[in-house]
């Protein structure tokens, strides 16, 4: 049985149709890369799957539960890590994680224990009681990761989890995702970093303008598109590579003029 089931999902902001009928079934224990250009509808899909946005057409089931009817139940079983460091910067990581943990009904002792250990593993224990206003993007991203995982969720949704992380942290996060998969968790994430997606995903879904353009393992995508790398497949599906080239040429021409 699939752990995520999306049937004919449509979503509009005002009159602007962002998702135009998405159909997806995702099996438990997979790492799914969900990629597409800006404005393709990635974040919107993730928000609907997490029960954050409940105004949409079609049906969405997560772990067999309707995300509209059982939003609370869904939210407590999944972890959501939003993009671009959306957190209360005036708090310290310890305070923020305590806040976030309590909203998952965890008790104080568990939160404190887990928080300390996880912060140490992420090399943040020395700044654990410093307010996050002075934190770099990567440090905030680490705190967000912890806050989305602290309740040990079954499915983890990540929106651009690697943005702002330094090279070592990217490797660490990749490794954590791989370990989570071994532990039987399902991971659904969006990203712009193609070579990472290419390497760690069991399944890659490319969407553009609210529609699924390609879906399968990297090998399958490669065979269908006759292109070498994910980046090439991506531009061939979502953009116009001849157009890109001529834009670049025009750019140089203007500089020379």
């Amino acid at each position, binding site marked *: 049985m699939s752990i995520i089931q999306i049937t004919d999902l449509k979503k509009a*902001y005002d009159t*602007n149709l962002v998702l135009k009928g998405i159909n997806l079934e995702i099996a438990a224990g997979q790492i799914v890369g969900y990629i597409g250009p800006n404005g393709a509808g990635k974040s919107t899909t993730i928000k609907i799957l*997490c*029960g*954050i946005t409940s105004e949409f057409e079609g049906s969405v089931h997560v772990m067999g539960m309707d995300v509209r009817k059982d939003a*609370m*139940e869904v*939210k*407590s079983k999944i972890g*959501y890590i*939003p993009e671009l460091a*959306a*957190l*209360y910067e*005036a*708090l310290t990581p310890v*305070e923020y994680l305590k*806040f*976030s943990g*309590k*909203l*998952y*009904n965890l008790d104080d002792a568990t939160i404190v224990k887990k928080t300390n250990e996880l912060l140490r593993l992420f090399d943040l224990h020395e700044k654990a009681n410093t*307010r996050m206003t002075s934190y770099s993007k990567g440090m905030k991203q680490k705190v967000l990761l912890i806050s*989305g995982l602290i309740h040990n969720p079954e499915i983890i949704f990540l929106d651009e989890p690697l943005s702002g992380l330094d090279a070592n942290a990217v490797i660490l996060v990749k490794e954590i995702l791989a370990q989570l998969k071994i532990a039987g968790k399902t991971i659904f994430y969006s990203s712009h970093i193609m070579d990472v997606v290419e390497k760690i995903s069991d399944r890659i879904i490319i969407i553009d303008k609210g529609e699924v353009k390609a879906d399968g393992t990297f090998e399958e995508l490669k065979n269908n598109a006759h292109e070498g790398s994910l980046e090439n497949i991506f531009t061939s599906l979502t953009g116009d590579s001849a157009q890109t080239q001529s834009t670049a040429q025009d750019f140089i021409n203007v500089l020379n003029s």
Partner: protein
Amino acid sequence: MDKLILRFVLFIVKTFLKKDVDFEKLKIIAETKLILDRRRVRLAMKNNAAKKEPGNQILVTLIVYGIMGLFIAFTIPIIKDIVISMTIIHCYVLFMMAMTLITDFSSVLLDTTDNQIILPRPVNSKTFFVARLVHILVYLLQFTIAVALFPIIFTFIVHGFFVGLACIFTILLTVLFSVFLTYLLYGLILKFSTEQRLKDIISGFQIVMTIVFAVGFQIVPRLFKVDKLMHFTMPIHWYTYFLPPLWMANLLESVKTFNADVPHIAMIFLAITVPLFTFWIMIKFLAPSFSKKIAALGNAGDETTSEEKNAAAHKIPLSEKLSPILCSNKTERAGFELAWKMTGRDKSFKIQFYPSLAYIAVFAFVFIFSSSKNYAATWHNLPNTNSFLWFVYLPMFTISTAIGLIAFNENFAASWIYFSRPLQKPGSLISGALKSILVKFMLPVVIILFAFAYYVWDYKIIDDFVLGIFNNILIFMLLSHISKSYLPFSMQPNLKQQTGKFIQVLVQILVIGALVWLHYLAIKVWWLVAALIPISAISCYFLLRTVQNYSWQKIAT
């Protein structure tokens, strides 16, 4: 204080708790929100608390409010008529609460991070709603207590127990009404305007708020000297029916005098029903549509603004029209235009600088009338004095603060651009910025002061003003020259901002004092003022050249 109030509010909530509200989650959300309130840096108070990690910002604000309240509370024993004093008190409460809600709490109301942080967690919408309500209640109560504590105490003392009780009641009604006004304002702005515009308007209110604080502490104590105001009475006119603070004041008068004639009963009726009715309208109609709009803020595209922007791009801004006339090279023009635009847009500059402009009016008033009790006679005698020298040199005390301010900006890191460009004489950037301030701020101020002085003293002050303008520029340039030469907007705020201030102020006072004294002496010889003009002008020119030619060695970082 917030924790105490929170406990009180939570206690009440717990007793009326509905079954689908999760009390533990409610509590942690409200607590966290209050911590965030405490730590939010309030721009209006920035000067007072230049610390890196604000411990309890809100407490500082509350204390300032409390002191302000103490000032205002003195109207109660001093002013004889209860209607007048209570009108002042309620006006004050209404104004302060509405302003606080607009300027400070707006950042809470307009914050969409909640959607990203709390919505993904298993918190049901009832709990979330009640948590927000509790937070707003605690916030309002804190400020109500700070604003109204002293006025209420004074009312109990002066007017007795029952009027005091009634006063608590009318102040709460006034607070309700101020909440309604705030929502109404937001609703209107969001309906007819964009999000960016809303932020601009809010920062405008913040500037007004800072000015009111700055000026209020100077003016209010002086008002008590005005005898007329002390014995003024205020019967009910037709317009009384449109002014909420007057309803409250008349209600209190009725309580005090047991007066229950028809107009007073109408007043009491209005005082009680209107705030409650408008509050009901707010909860029923305004708040829901408002929260929908807020939720949409994050998602709305900027399609509407691109057209306006294109239209604006075709018009050459004033700064770019002026710079070729006033600046001698391209680097200087760049500095001029940058400073002109940034001073108009950077909120922290505006909040720190604009109140000092308002001080000019306060100083003018204070200097001229400081010693006298009889304003009319002083005013009458004014043309025979040399007080116009105050008007000539007033701009200096305030405009020169901009020299320090333009060096600092939140976006200081962007100054890499100066260092990566092939600039021979970076001093031109500074001189351009200085010219920008002179033209944008000093010129209008001088014109207004001149117009006023001309009205009072007639043509005989023209030569003094011309000399004064050059002397002002001279002092301005000199201050810039002796203080550290930072490139415009290149320094991190709060770190170096305070250092060296004392010396600068000392030199400022000495130089200004010397020049004003010389000018004062020169007035006695009829041709001397005119003769000094070229000397001052030439000195200005040479100082300007010096600044323009600063090399990289002279630039402080």
